[in-house]
């Protein structure tokens, strides 16, 4: 493709020579202009095709994607890469012949031929088999007949969306609008999902990158609601997305362990605290421009509207911002989210209501996180981090920056935490004591870590490291449960003091 572009670029030079250089400064010959346009079109076409084409594969063993290449206007994929995560594979090229093994099954392909021999029987592919540098490429359209023979089970191939389902792994969902005030769209999925969610005027977008979510009966769902009139399901290049049309900005919240997503108009979000601030509540800092409105609603359906929540739990990072790469398979944003969900559960068992700042893979700014916390009126804010460096747990309270002058009722944004430093340090000490009781190595420090300094309640950051050399311990439910119990006990011990500061 690059050579085509280069050839188009040379065309103008030839036309200049043919017409004579004297014309160049005054007027461009039509052939020259045409050549430039062709070159420009080629460049635009190349840049437009820069998105990597892929086939997403969903199976009980793993969800993954493989590259798709186009040859002679037909989509192909490498058979070895496609089946490698599902079993033991090997291949050997000998001249035009390519012998492929999957577990105990043998398949023979010949380059440039449509007929193949799979497991002792013949099979016709819809296009020629290709051999490139000993890599066997099969046409995508042939997978629906080829894979059942190799895998010995059923598959479902969505060719236009480039999504392949091995076995019964699809996640189905139902969607209906509940006519409450305000009305809300409730979507129930057959398994937990974790989409990326983005809001923009007129719609809310949910992108399912790793979840085998499939379309309901119709691609477009219409609802008898003026604020949420419809939703559209789309699949392309291995990714599914659900676009919810909304008349007003909407918020998404998760519940039922990720099986239920509720879309609510933002005009009346079900915030658990009343709109009026308690008399003794310090005013919300206003030295900075007001942050963007929150894009998620309180996530715990059990928190009744109109009541104070006790704790705001913030799984750090999320969405485009993945935090530290802990291992090849483990990102900080995923560990913090899993730990936050567990901590919420343990808080609830201790009788402490808790709300997650994000309960999905969302991108939120630090200002948004602080603004949501300050608006909630919670008694404590806990932000969770994870690291593969060092051992044990680090607890941080704010290291406030210099300067910062409050203007009457308005607190300086950068030093809004100043009135709560002592209480935050008491909370850190209480949690540290509980962790130490569980033989967890714990270090308590101050840190220049936003948004701790922007929060107007007791604020604490917890950085969780493995308690031994094994980084995978970070995602261990047992390890997380032990830490969550200690954190909840430490916070519960200080409950009265924390409650008192917000009254």
């Amino acid at each position, binding site marked *: 493709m690059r050579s085509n572009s280069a050839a188009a670029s040379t065309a103008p030079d030839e036309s200049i020579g043919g017409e004579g250089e004297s014309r160049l400064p005054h007027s461009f010959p039509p052939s020259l202009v045409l050549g430039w346009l062709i070159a420009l079109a080629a460049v635009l076409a190349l840049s437009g095709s820069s998105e990597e084409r892929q086939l997403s594969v969903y199976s009980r063993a793993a969800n993954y994607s493989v590259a798709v290449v186009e040859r002679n206007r037909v989509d192909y994929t490498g058979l070895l890469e496609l089946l490698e995560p599902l079993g033991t594979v090997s291949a050997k090229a000998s001249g035009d012949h390519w012998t492929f093994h999957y577990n105990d099954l043998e398949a023979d392909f010949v380059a440039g031929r449509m007929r193949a021999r799979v497991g002792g029987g013949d099979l016709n592919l819809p296009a020629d088999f290709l051999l490139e540098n000993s890599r066997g490429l099969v046409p995508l359209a042939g997978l629906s007949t080829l894979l059942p023979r190799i895998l010995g089970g059923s598959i479902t191939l969505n060719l236009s969306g480039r999504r392949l389902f091995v076995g019964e792994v699809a996640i189905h969902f139902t969607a209906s609008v509940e006519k409450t005030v305000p009305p809300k769209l409730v979507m129930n999925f057959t398994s937990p999902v974790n989409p990326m969610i983005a809001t923009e005027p007129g719609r809310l977008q949910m992108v399912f990158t790793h979840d085998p979510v499939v379309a309901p009966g119709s691609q477009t769902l219409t609802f008898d609601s003026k604020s949420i009139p419809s939703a559209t399901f789309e699949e392309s290049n291995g990714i599914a997305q659900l676009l919810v049309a909304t008349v007003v900005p909407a918020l998404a919240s998760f519940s039922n362990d990720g099986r239920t997503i509720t879309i609510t108009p933002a005009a009346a979000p079900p915030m658990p605290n009343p709109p009026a601030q308690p008399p003794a509540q310090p005013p919300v800092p206003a030295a900075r421009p007001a942050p963007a409105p929150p894009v998620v609603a309180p996530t715990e359906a059990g928190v009744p509207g109109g009541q104070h929540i006790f704790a705001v739990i913030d799984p750090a990072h999320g969405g485009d*911002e993945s935090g530290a790469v802990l291992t090849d398979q483990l990102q*900080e944003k995923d560990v913090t989210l899993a730990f936050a969900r567990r901590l919420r559960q343990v808080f609830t068992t201790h009788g402490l209501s808790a709300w997650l700042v994000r309960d999905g893979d969302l991108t939120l700014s630090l200002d948004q996180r602080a603004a949501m916390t300050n608006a909630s009126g919670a008694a404590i804010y806990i932000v969770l981090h994870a690291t593969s460096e060092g051992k044990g747990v680090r607890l941080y309270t704010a290291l406030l920056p210099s300067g910062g002058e409050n203007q009457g009722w308005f607190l300086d944004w950068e030093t809004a935490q100043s009135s709560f430093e002592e209480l935050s340090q008491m909370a850190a000490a209480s949690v540290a004591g509980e962790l130490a009781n569980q033989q967890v190595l714990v270090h308590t420090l101050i840190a220049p*870590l936003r948004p701790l300094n922007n929060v107007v309640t007791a604020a604490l950051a917890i950085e969780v490291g493995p308690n031994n050399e094994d980084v995978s311990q970070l995602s261990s439910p047992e390890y997380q449960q032990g830490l969550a119990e200690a954190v909840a006990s430490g916070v519960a011990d200080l409950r009265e003091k924390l409650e008192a500061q917000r009254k």
Partner: protein
Amino acid sequence: MIPRHLLIAVVVLLATTLGMGVYAWRIRGRVERTEASATNSQPVAPPAAGPSEQVTLYVANDEGGRLLPQAARIPLPSGRQERAQELLRALVDIYLGKSSPHVLGTGSEIRGVYLADPGLAVIDLNAAFANGHRSGVLVEELTLASLLATLSANIPAVTRVKVLVDGKERDTLAGHVDLTSFYDVSRVDQLVTQLATEP
């Protein structure tokens, strides 16, 4: 016969033209030399070695997550700003060494230290320093505290510090520790005390 006054005028004009030509030639040469020095992208050579002096470097150690003072003798120039730069460069050299107690990314450098406003120091890191830094609250905090504590311990007039990356403000060092604020040395000293103790 050419009138005498015309002849004199022509001679004066010729002399003036010649003089201006010589002046323009010299100006051109000067501009070329200035441009050449302005576009020189070679790293700035270390200043001429001054007498060796005893200094205190606050060295981070990932083993145990501690920050401890360490005496060192390094050659220091006489200017305060240059001294500050050499101090931090000596510190970074320890982190880039083979037996580094707190590994920094390859190519990490201190671009400059500027002593501005009374008491304000601005540390300018290069992009490789921040881009190659490991991500995590403690590892980033150790680096920041190490730089700030070393600076304030050896340049007593410094009371506030700001950190830039490639001459620009950056949100965080590597995803965690805040770089948007100015830091009071007194608050950093409190952190240094905490980092000096065993967990």
